[in-house]
């Protein structure tokens, strides 16, 4: 298992999982989000290519109400 930080929370994922697989696991709609992987924004087209490893930091954001 690999441990990563997902939106500030520690979560365990299977080793060599891609961002795409992680989104599937958490049932996140990739059309409505943006992802930052260790401080770098990942284009949607690379979700299947980007592998996650131990201690990675992932931020998943979306739009919410705001002024």
């Amino acid at each position, binding site marked *: 298992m690999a441990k990563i930080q*997902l*939106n*500030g*929370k520690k*979560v365990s994922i299977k080793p060599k999982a891609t961002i795409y697989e992680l989104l599937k696991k*958490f*049932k*996140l709609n990739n059309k*409505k*989000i*943006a*992802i*930052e992987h260790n401080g770098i*924004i*990942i*284009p*949607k087209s690379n979700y299947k290519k980007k592998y996650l490893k131990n201690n990675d930091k992932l*931020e*998943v*954001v*979306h*739009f*919410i*109400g*705001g*002024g």
Partner: protein
Amino acid sequence: MKKDIFKIANKRLKSRLIVGTGKYKNFKQTAQAIKESGADMVTVAVRRVNIIDKKKPILTDYLNPKKIIYLPNTAGCFTSEEALRTLRLAREMGGWKLVKLEVLGDKKTLYPNMIETLKSTKTLVKEGFKVMVYCTDDLLLAKKLEDLGASAIMPLASPIGSGLGLQNKVNISLIIKQSKVPVIVDAGIGTASDATIAMEMGCDGVLINSAIAKAKDPIKMAQAFKNAVIAGRNCYLAGRMKKNYFAIPSSPTDGLI
């Protein structure tokens, strides 16, 4: 009569009222208030997805980004780095190039940090963003923003969420006179008449959130703001009468009995 067109960075808007989507009781109320306001552009914030509880409703379920223009903002950012990070993520999310930049400088007043704001504007313009910039009502800084390539100048009427209305009409007027890009009064509008006054002065638009969301009846207030902005704009276009120090009778004096 010439058609009154409102354009921000080549985006044509029907309404001169831009509405924030924060502080409402729920998304249903948000959606209804926005519908009643007639606004075709709304501001939205960028935040972490709730990974644990995904049953919670989300904004896009209630406001379709294909039908209404989402204007991502940087609310809550206190440095240029935070603001840039937020807007780059927003762009990745849906391809949005038109964004609202606000870099705050003080937690109590949420007053804009203009040094960081100018720095961020420069970078964002270079990266191809169309930036609408929340700013102080300082004439020289507003000009500087325009020179840096801002798509709209958004001076505050008074602090965010204060509802204190237009506190420095002279400065706002001077900014309107000097600007070639749209000037949109942002923050501090408390009631419909504040919006009318801003529009009468020649503002190109107003951005309202709290004054609608925090009204006792936000839906009715959204209607009030819609009409207030239209009234103010028409008044500006019509050109008000001259002020006189003494009375001038409205009825003819000839033929008095």
